[in-house]
Each structure stands twice: as C-alpha cells, then as structure tokens.
C-alpha cells in the first residue's frame, strides 16, 4: 500500500508502543485523533510531554512523584515503622485504593530473575536495604506468588537479619472456583489450611 502521509505512518507506528495495540487499532486511534478529536489530541500531546518531563520517582519509596518525596512518604499520620514492599507502582495503587495499609511503601523495579539476567541491583534491593536500615519494625513483602517472587523474598530475607519480615498469604482467591485452580495454587492453599474448630 502506498503511503499518503509519512507522518501519519510514524504516528501509527508510535502508538503501537501501548500495550495491546497492534497495527490495526493503532490506525484507528491515529485516524480518530487527527480527524475527529484534534483539540483533545493536542491536550494529550502536551500532557504527555509535561508528564514525561516532570514525573520522576520519590527518592524514598520510588513511587511516581513530581516532588523529591511523595505525599505518602511525607504524611506524618502514616506509620513510618511498617514498610510494605511491592514490585510495581500499580500494586501500590491497589493497596491504596483498598485503603488497607496505613504504613509506608517501597516500590521495587520488578522481581529478581536470574534466568532473565535481572539482578538484585537492578530491582533496587540496595535502596530497599538502605530504607530498612533507617529503622522499621516490620517489613511486609507483598510480592507476586511466583518463582521470581519467592527468589526475591528469600534474597531480601538473607540481607535483613534481625528484621521482622512478613508476607502475604497465598492460596485461593475470593470467588475462586476450586475446580478451575491449578495444582500449585491448590497445594499452597492446602498447605496453609487453618484450624477451624
């Protein structure tokens, strides 16, 4: 197919950076932005540009922040002695939405994965250890239940002697159909069964 506008092609290619967007939906988006909503598209372009320039990481917990320290870290009402470790900003948001944790956070940059070449340094373990050394009573590991999550939890534990570490329970999700669960989840849930009477 002959190209009618090289810039349009470039926009279409650029949009494919978004998760779940292939060539066809990128084309639809590009047409929509230019033909139907040019004003909103301009806003999108300027907000995106500004966001990229101004959003950085909180120097204490590494969540996205426009200031050196985020609102959670500077909130005096939160319990500074309970630190929850998550592996992405999205997971922090999930806990904040649920309003379940009134302590502080530390956001790792993913999980340690030797077979993918991801080392402790790359996921901010040294920064986490620095934060823990500032003084905490409890470190809550809220990591994905996976081989990499387990490896990361074990490595953190090995570097935190004398610190109280806790981790989230693993097993059957709410509303989860037992029939449809994989053998690993079943094994975990059975292993973590609790006395009922």
């Amino acid at each position, binding site marked *: 197919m002959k190209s009618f506008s090289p810039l349009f092609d470039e926009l279409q290619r650029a949009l494919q950076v978004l998760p779940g967007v292939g060539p066809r939906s990128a084309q639809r988006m590009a047409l929509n932005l230019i033909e139907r909503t040019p004003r909103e598209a301009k806003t999108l372009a300027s907000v995106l540009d500004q966001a990229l320039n101004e959003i950085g990481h909180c120097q204490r917990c590494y969540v996205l922040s426009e200031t050196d320290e985020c609102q959670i870290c500077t909130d005096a009402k939160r319990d500074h002695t309970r630190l929850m470790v998550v592996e992405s900003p999205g997971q922090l948001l999930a806990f904040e939405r649920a309003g379940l944790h009134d302590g502080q956070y530390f956001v790792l940059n993913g999980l340690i994965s*030797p*077979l993918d070449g991801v080392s402790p340094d790359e996921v901010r373990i040294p920064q986490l250890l620095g934060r823990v050394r500032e003084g905490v009573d409890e470190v809550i590991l809220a990591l994905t239940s996976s081989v990499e999550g*387990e*490896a990361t939890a*074990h*490595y953190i534990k*090995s570097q935190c002697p004398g610190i109280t570490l806790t981790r989230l329970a693993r097993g059957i999700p709410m509303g989860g159909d037992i029939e449809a669960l*994989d053998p*690993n989840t079943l094994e975990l849930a059975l292993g973590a069964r609790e006395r009922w009477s």
Partner: protein
Amino acid sequence: MTPGWVLHRRPYRESSALVEVLTADGRQRGVVRGQGKSSQLVAFMPLLIDWGPARDLRSLTRIEPMGPSVSLSGNPLLCGLYVNELCVRLLPQDEACPGLMADYGRTLGALRDGEIEPALRRFERALLAQLGFDFSVAATADGQPLEDDLRYWVHPESGPRLAPQTAAGAAFGRDLKRVQAQAFDDAGVLKLAKRLNRQRLNALLGDKPLQSRLLIQGANS
C-alpha cells in the same frame, strides 16, 4: 503427548508466554498462548506437551500439568534456578538428551528434601556428560591409574597430571578417585568435586557469569 519439565517462562506479547522446557528431545522452547494456560506454567513443573507444527517458534498447543511444580523455597529454590540456568545456557536447543530428564527430576526431589550439595554435583556431572565433557579424573591424561598418595593437577579440558608433591592446589589421587565414583560422604571430596565441575562448566560458559550463582553467593554472604 511428550513429558517435559518447565525450566523457565517469560511473558510474551499481550497474553502469551515463551517457555523453555526440558524433554527427552532436548531443551526446547515455544509459545503458550492464552493468559490462563500460560500463567499456570511455572518453573520446576512436570507436564505433558503437544507441539504445534515446526516453525521458527513452535507453539505448545496442548499442555497438561502432571502435578504441581516441585515446591522449592529459600536456598533450595535458588539452587533450582541454578540448575535451570545451567540447562538454558549450556544445552543446545533441540538436541536429544534422553537420560537428563530423569537426572533433573531426581535433582529437584533432592533439593526439596534438603540434600543440596551432592545433588548439585551429580547433576553437573550428568550435564557435563551430556555435553561430552565427562572425562575421567581417576586416570591421568595419558591413561595411567592414579596413585592414592600422589598429588595431581587437573586441567578443565584434560585428565589429571602428576604434580610436584608440595604443589598447592593439587589434589590427592585417592580424593580424585572418590570424586570419579561420586562418593560424596566426605566434605573435602564434595568440595573438590565442586571445584572440578566449576572449572569445566566455566570453560563452557565463557565470560558471562551465571546470575543464579551470583545470587546464591550474595544471599549466603
């Protein structure tokens, strides 16, 4: 369906995963499509596989777990990752390795039961044998049987050579024979086996260090 073990899974595109598996036909890789199907595949899981038609990247059209993955945690888990990284780094793709699957399964069982070091040394030997690197350390490079009380140097790519009897780092013949027989009841022999295996593995691995080995060292330091 073909039996295999999951060595590694990494996310691929939106809802698929790229998996490395160990089967009798070798280390093989393919795509598993669909979030539900791909997310239940985890390292150390035994499974049955149906492969799609051979292309650049084959897909695993049907998979059936043969049970939960061997559940490892703590240091044994890191050791399991070490075993998997060795397989992924050193086994050529699609080159048959009929005996190795059984060795692999035995190794995971031993790691789970806490019998770590001897199990790792046996697996390293089995892997080296599969790669054609399993020459004997019970006889010298020119075929002479070792003397129990003499000391020998072992080069990673050839057999033992007689060393000056005061040489530091040279091993006694009797210890080398026990390494060859995998008689690991002695801590010193186990350590020697570790050193000899490591020399050979390092010769095959080249300059890129094993991430899992660094991780184990970091966790135990």
